């Protein structure tokens, strides 16, 4: 059975703050989802609801039709991997893996030991003695080898260096291709993971901003560059996310679906059209007044 996650009018109050407000979306199918948002947007709050750590103040979260909070059946099917402080963890790497093996029915011990070698983890060392990067790598190994139907990686790479992250992405794609499951990546390293994603959910200030397949989202972004006067005349009715001017050349980033007729008109007028990367698009979409400039 493929996974279905339904978030329906969910609000979460933490103290006197609205961490999430009236959030609704559905994730259908075993895909790799990207959950993106600025610091404090509510990403971890949202994920903690999926992982049964909290209950929404209002609204419902359903994973395959069931509420996750204090629900053992759902909790067994969700694995929440996040950067936690493990500096007091006196268990060894080996012990942590054995623990995961006991609680995760889909655990693949052979795959786990292959990953341990790839990440060069010392089996007999205590977790607290590992560097932050190695601790994160151990989390990633457990997250991958558990093959849990819903696997959430929340900034799981913290402290991992670029080569280790690259191994993580490579193993994630390979293992997902062989064992499709619902994977949610919450990350700030957007340009690193952009090509891994199938769908993107962007939340901003506790609200849903975008939920689209990544190729549709990307197709909505377009940069238009040319003589300022021409750019102004031809883009006045479009949603401009960002504009920059250098001398008489102006560049605008627009967001929205353009008809092909409109596109060829822009091209014929000698304007330069180009794509906007996911990370850039994310920056412009979540930019608020007073953020700079």
């Amino acid at each position, binding site marked *: 059975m493929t996974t279905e996650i339904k978030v329906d009018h969910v609000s979460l109050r933490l103290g006197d703050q609205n961490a999430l407000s009236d959030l609704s979306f559905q994730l259908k199918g075993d*895909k*790799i989802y990207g959950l993106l948002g600025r610091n404090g947007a509510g990403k971890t709050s949202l994920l903690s609801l999926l992982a049964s750590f909290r209950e929404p103040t209002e609204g419902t979260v359903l994973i395959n039709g069931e509420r996750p909070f204090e629900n053992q059946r759902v909790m067994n099917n969700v694995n929440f991997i996040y950067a936690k402080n493990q500096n007091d963890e006196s268990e060894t790497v080996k012990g942590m893996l054995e623990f995961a093996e006991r609680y995760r029915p889909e655990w693949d011990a052979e795959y786990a030991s292959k990953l341990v070698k790839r990440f060069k983890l010392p089996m007999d060392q205590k977790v607290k003695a590992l560097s932050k990067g190695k601790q994160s790598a151990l989390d990633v190994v457990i997250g991958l080898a558990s093959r849990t139907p819903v696997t959430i990686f929340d900034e799981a790479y913290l402290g991992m260096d670029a080569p280790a992250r690259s191994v993580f*992405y*490579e193993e994630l*794609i*390979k293992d*997902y*291709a*062989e064992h499709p499951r619902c994977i949610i990546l919450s990350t700030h390293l957007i340009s690193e993971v*952009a*090509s*891994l*994603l*199938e769908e993107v959910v962007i939340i901003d200030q506790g609200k849903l901003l975008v939920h689209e397949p*990544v*190729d549709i989202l*990307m*197709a909505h972004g377009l940069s238009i560059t040319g003589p300022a006067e021409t750019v102004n005349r031809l883009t006045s009715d479009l949603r401009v996310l960002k504009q920059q001017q250098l001398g008489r050349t102006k560049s605008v980033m627009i967001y929205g679906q353009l008809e092909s007729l409109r596109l060829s008109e822009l091209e014929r007028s000698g304007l330069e059209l*180009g*794509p906007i*990367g996911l990370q850039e698009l994310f920056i412009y979409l979540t930019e608020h007044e007073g953020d700079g400039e």
Partner: protein
Amino acid sequence: MCEPMNDGRPIFVQIAEHIENEILGGSLEELAQVPSTNQFAAFYKINPATAAKGVNVLVNEGILFKKRGIGMFVAEHAREKLIEKRKKTFFQDYVAAMLREAEKLHIEKETLIQMIEDGQK
């Protein structure tokens, strides 16, 4: 293993183009088996659905065909079809850009033709 394709265009378009180039260059022969979408995904570190989308573009154009349960293969006459297709966009993709640049640099038509002739020698 390879860095993800990243020239800004949609990745599935780049995957399709990569396969086209392999066929045009002869490293993928007609009736040869094409790597699976999972292999493409692992190689380029891209989502398998994206790889599948790129492959399906070529299936729809009759460049590749699926054998159920076995895999994906290069169709007969795929190379010819691709040559025809690329010829159609050759002017727009290459000649038009060259003419624009030549105009900026005030390169005369005769000089341009001379350059092409010299380049072909």
